């Protein structure tokens, strides 16, 4: 089958969802009021609260939420075949993600632009807030470990991409100093930066001397016992991970405008360029889908694991954090929330969709697919690599050589993952500092102490678990855990929206149904993994780190479910909370 048809069908469903379902949500459920004075207008301070044009805000929201996660998840989930992955990405976006992002935005705008964490405290009580902090802590740690793994892996398999990724750092610092501080136009300098990076990628693809190939330098893949008893691949992994951790230590302690923000800006450009190249290539090349619709040889069941493997791409808790953290403070009119929240989720869905199509068309035959996706562990280890290969093929449809396309795609993913890593380590530093203040250990809130702890914990997580591919493969073992904590966060957000709707006397069904579905799948998948896989009770050996972390998250998930049931069955308490909220609002 031609992949263009799949893109066409999915696109059509997205359009129908946007045209009709989001309209229904806007009018009947969230009841957007064009006369409501949004926090951006009420508290306009020129810094955080700024009324913004809806398309500008949509673009900002979309580029903030889209990162490496909508690529990594679907690339792994292709293990079960393209149909389950595509169905969840398309229907999940229309009926769960759109509702969630849109609702988080409206809920926050109706509550002075407060973030989900604060709202949890107000709508459900202190316990929920505590829960929230812990989930974010685990989530962020997981993000660090997984993305450090992804980057090290891509550096080893795409040595031509390394140079460009390193070039990006001085370019970003230059943009930070020269442009961002002086309020100049950033468009041209960042396009120049992109041209330099991609130019370097093209040159490095053809000039082996410019490829930073650690494995090759150590004598190739067959070299054994290079250092500490590791083979060349293992040793390269260790070196890359250490370099990355040293880098994030520096990057996350610098002022944001020096490196983080200009990098973000360049990466947002890369997202736009990447999507244009991939969809353009798809339309021109019109490749045939070689992956099976259902992988009949899959030994791990897709139900319920699929729904936590594809986290971002369909519904994601991180979107709620962005929607309620910054976007809601910049909403000019309440009616704009439909475009920003719903269409932002659709934007991310298109990225996940092209990932699925790139992997589905990458293999020469179905047999090759079965070889690459022989087990769930193999899917985890090779998924991103398959996407890079498939995306390279798609881009070659535009006349760009596949090898160059692959290098460019690798650069895009590494850049996304690296900025997420920078911000996540920074976020972890803040949380550690906050906990330090809370528990009377002010030393923890010192910048370097907190960053050191954050980096050290990340290193432990990436390096300790001995996964299928030896040292350093802990990152991908953690991917299902990342999915579950992320889905849990989305579940809490949906619960808050449902409670709010219920209290307003409106039907909470559009948010309640995805919430119940999501939390059921999460709890189910967790029980399956924690009790039967990681504890050692089943056939596999016990994996203690995963077991402990998984058990904590499972505990949180069940707690949240009970909390929600209790509140829905106890209108009295809901009323009390509402009264308290009304008092505080006065």
């Amino acid at each position, binding site marked *: 089958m031609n992949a263009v048809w799949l893109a066409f069908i999915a696109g059509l469903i997205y359009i129908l969802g946007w045209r009709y379902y989001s309209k229904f949500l806007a009018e009947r459920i969230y009841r957007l009021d064009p006369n409501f004075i949004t926090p951006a207008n009420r508290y306009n301070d*020129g*810094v*955080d609260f*700024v*009324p*913004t*044009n809806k*398309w*500008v*805000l*949509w*673009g*900002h929201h979309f*580029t*903030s939420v889209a990162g490496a996660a909508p690529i990594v998840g679907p690339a792994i989930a292709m293990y079960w075949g393209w149909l389950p992955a595509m169905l969840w990405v398309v229907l999940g976006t229309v009926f769960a993600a759109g509702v969630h992002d849109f609702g988080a935005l409206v809920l926050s705008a109706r509550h002075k632009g407060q973030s989900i964490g604060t709202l949890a405290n107000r709508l459900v009580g202190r316990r929920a807030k505590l829960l929230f902090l812990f989930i974010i802590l685990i989530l962020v740690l997981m993000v660090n470990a997984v993305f450090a793994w992804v980057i090290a892996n891509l550096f080893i398999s795409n040595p031509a991409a390394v140079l460009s990724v390193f070039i990006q750092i001085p370019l970003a610092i230059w943009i930070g100093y020269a442009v*961002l*501080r002086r309020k100049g*136009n*950033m*468009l041209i300098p*960042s396009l120049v930066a992109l041209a330099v990076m991609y130019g370097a990628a093209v040159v490095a693809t053809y000039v082996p001397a410019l490829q930073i190939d650690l494995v090759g330098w150590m004598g190739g893949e067959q070299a054994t016992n290079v250092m500490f008893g590791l083979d060349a691949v293992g040793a390269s992994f260790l070196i890359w991970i250490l370099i990355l951790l040293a880098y994030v230590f520096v990057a996350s302690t610098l*002022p*944001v*405008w020096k490196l983080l*923000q200009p990098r*973000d*800006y360049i990466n*947002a*450009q890369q997202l736009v360029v990447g999507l244009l190249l991939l969809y353009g290539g798809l339309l021109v090349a019109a490749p045939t889908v070689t992956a099976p619709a259902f992988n009949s040889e899959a030994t791990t069941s897709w139900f319920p694991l699929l729904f936590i493997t594809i986290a971002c791409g369909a519904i994601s808790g991180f979107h709620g954090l962005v929607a309620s953290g*910054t976007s809601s403070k*910049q909403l*000019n009119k309440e009616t704009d929330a439909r475009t920003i929240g719903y269409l932002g989720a659709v934007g991310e869905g298109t990225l996940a969709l092209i990932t699925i199509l790139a992997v589905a068309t990458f293999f020469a035959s179905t047999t090759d697919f079965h070889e690459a996706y022989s087990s769930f562990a193999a899917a985890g280890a090779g998924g991103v690599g398959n996407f890079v290969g498939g995306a390279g093929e798609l881009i070659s449809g535009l006349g760009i050589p596949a090898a160059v396309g692959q290098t460019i795609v690798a650069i895009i993913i590494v850049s996304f993952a690296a900025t997420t890593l920078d911000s996540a380590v920074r976020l972890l530093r803040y949380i550690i500092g906050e906990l330090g203040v809370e528990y009377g250990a002010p030393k923890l809130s010192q910048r370097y102490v907190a960053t050191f702890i954050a980096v050290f914990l990340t290193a432990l997580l990436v390096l300790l678990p001995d996964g299928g591919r030896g040292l350093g493969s802990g990152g991908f073992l953690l991917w299902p855990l990342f999915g579950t904590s992320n889905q849990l966060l989305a579940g809490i957000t949906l619960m808050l929206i449902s409670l709010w709707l219920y209290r307003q006397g409106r039907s909470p069904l559009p948010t309640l149904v995805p919430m119940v579905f999501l939390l059921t799948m999460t709890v189910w998948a967790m029980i399956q993994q924690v009790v039967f896989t990681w504890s050692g009770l089943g056939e596999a050996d016990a994996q203690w780190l995963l077991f402990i972390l998984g058990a904590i998250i499972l505990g949180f998930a069940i707690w949240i479910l009970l909390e929600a049931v209790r509140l829905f069955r106890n209108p009295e308490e809901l009323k009390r909370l509402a009264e308290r909220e009304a008092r505080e609002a006065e």
Partner: protein
Amino acid sequence: MSDPNEPRNPIARWLYRYDRMLRLGHEAEVIRELRDEDDLFLFMCFSEMLGVPNPVSYHTLELYPLIIEEFHEWHRRMGMEHSPLDHIRCC
């Protein structure tokens, strides 16, 4: 909402919006940092009035006419409706 800085030419306007879209999240951070620096600078200029000896006050005195507007915004931001300094009446 209509942005007063938005160009009229459709292509220029499109590029302007695209640039705004990408830099939106960064601006708040930069504005905050620039303000902090400005506040420090103003503090240096007016440190003598707060009892902190300033060896370069002779030079900073010459800057006053140039920074009067900023001074006005600064004292408003610091929560003072009117200028706290008797000899500088900006408002």
